[in-house]
């Protein structure tokens, strides 16, 4: 039997779960990202202003951010499989029903509330929590694969929607997107499972520990801060350090998503096409940044150090953006920032699971993700207002860029070796207790 294991080791089932969540996230995020494709044709048909239709999108951002902790709690209590299956059915049906749009209130309710809430089910915070159950040694890698898929989803689903719209109509395109979302249902039904124990496996497909499978840590034991409920986690320092730096992550990424192209055009005087190319290049690099961060964290360790490095690198990018007054500065910024863009969520999710365990991880991740969204929304508004007052993006970019220094310090000061399960060793005599 041992020889068979050595010669022909099958693919660990966790990778099938990873592939399923990857595809679900891919279609769910892709369908949502495609909203922009519908803005012009729907506005023209119904005579809506850009502001009016944007309200539905704004409501969606708000509802999606606020519902994350609640979906996280559902994940922790009822399990990821059931929640994601229901979310996919609701998301697919509601997306298809957008084909029936006849009034702005219908769009606001269906997209802004139903679609945005349902999208919180297979959100990265929940898929990361599911990955954390299936993986310990390769946790960050699995989470990073899921994160990278979200970027790819936007890159494939949005062009698909654009050409579908050109070939047919916006109603048919919404219907097609809904059907694609529902196509992820069979994969979810077949492959999604809650925990490796459900299939008689250990995390990572590892053999059972010699002392009788009593340890829960990555290398032997549970961390000292492992919690049963999310409330307990917020009584400790690491969650505030991570949530605080995650807030800054939101401020520094959202502000660029919104204001980078106008900044490049107005402050640096380049064409919209070049600005869009630089931005697209930055988004493309984030796939490699996320994957690289996951691999480095798993292989070398010191997740909080990589997190601090990611924030520091992004800070250097901001510094270059503000000091190099040319197109070259934009390209350098895109290169530096692109690598750190998705690295921070991957590392934060992985570190959260390592410190607090997986029992309340869905809720904890949902709450920290809410911090991220609030930071992002606030920074976008702040940048818009300061631009109106000063006529330049220099001040708002300097403010959010400066926040990256305390974020890096906050991440670096997390006592990972003390609290992370990765660095705990099993004590056989206490195995049955705490």
């Amino acid at each position: 039997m041992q020889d068979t294991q050595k010669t022909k080791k099958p693919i660990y089932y966790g990778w099938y779960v990873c592939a399923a969540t990857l595809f679900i996230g891919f279609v769910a995020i892709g369908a949502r990202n495609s909203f922009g494709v519908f803005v012009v044709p729907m506005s023209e048909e119904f005579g809506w202003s850009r502001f009016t239709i944007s309200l539905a999108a704004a409501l969606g951002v708000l509802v999606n951010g606020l519902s994350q902790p609640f979906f996280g709690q559902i994940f922790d209590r009822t399990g990821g499989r059931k929640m994601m299956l229901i979310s996919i059915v609701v998301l697919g049906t509601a997306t298809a029903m957008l084909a029936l749009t006849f009034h702005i209130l219908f769009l606001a309710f269906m997209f802004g509330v139903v679609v945005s809430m349902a999208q919180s089910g297979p959100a990265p915070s929940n898929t990361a929590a599911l990955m954390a159950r299936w993986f310990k040694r390769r946790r960050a890698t699995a989470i990073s694969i899921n994160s990278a898929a979200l970027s790819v989803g936007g890159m494939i689903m949005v062009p698909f929607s654009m050409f579908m719209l050109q070939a047919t109509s916006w109603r048919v395109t919404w219907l097609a997107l809904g059907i694609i979302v529902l196509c992820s249902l069979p994969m979810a039904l077949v492959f999604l499972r809650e925990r490796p124990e459900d299939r008689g496996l250990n995390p990572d497909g590892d053999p059972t520990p010699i002392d009788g499978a009593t340890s829960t840590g990555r290398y032997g034991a549970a961390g000292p801060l492992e919690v049963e409920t999310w409330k307990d986690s917020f009584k400790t320092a690491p969650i505030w350090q991570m949530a605080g730096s995650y807030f800054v992550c939101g401020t520094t990424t959202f502000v660029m998503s919104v204001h980078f192209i106008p900044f490049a055009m107005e402050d640096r005087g380049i064409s919209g096409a070049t600005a869009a190319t630089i931005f697209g290049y930055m988004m493309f690099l984030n796939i490699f940044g996320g994957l690289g961060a996951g691999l480095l964290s798993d292989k070398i360790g010191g997740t909080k150090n990589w997190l601090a490095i990611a924030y520091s690198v992004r800070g250097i990018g901001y510094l270059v953006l503000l000091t190099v007054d040319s197109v070259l500065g934009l390209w350098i910024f895109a290169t530096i920032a692109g690598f750190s863009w998705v690295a921070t969520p991957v590392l934060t999710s992985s570190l959260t699971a390592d410190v607090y365990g997986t029992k309340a991880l869905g809720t904890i991740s949902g709450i920290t993700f809410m911090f991220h969204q609030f930071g992002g929304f606030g920074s976008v508004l702040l940048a818009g207002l300061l631009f109106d007052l000063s006529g330049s993006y220099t001040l708002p970019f300097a403010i959010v860029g400066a926040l990256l220094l305390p974020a890096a310090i906050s991440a670096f000061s997390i006592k990972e070796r003390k609290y992370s399960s990765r660095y705990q060793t099993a004590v056989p005599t206490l195995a049955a207790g705490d």
Partner: protein
Amino acid sequence: MASLFTFILAHQGDSADPELIHWIKERLDQIFGTGPWTVVVVMGLIILAMPIFVTIVYLMQSKRRSADESPDQDGANQDETSQERVP
């Protein structure tokens, strides 16, 4: 305020900027130079290829495992048995 709000959402990362999308579409039109249906079919196949590929790999693995295990197993539980199970 209305213009600020519109501006924010028109460039919101959550749903792609319509102007950026229009520009990307023009680029893709230049690259492919074919009708929209061609791109729709190609993209659709790419999207559907992922679950099909994963399912095929899973079935192949299951078949191989069951073939490997048939001499010393009763075949009642064919999946994942060559990875160590929790007692």
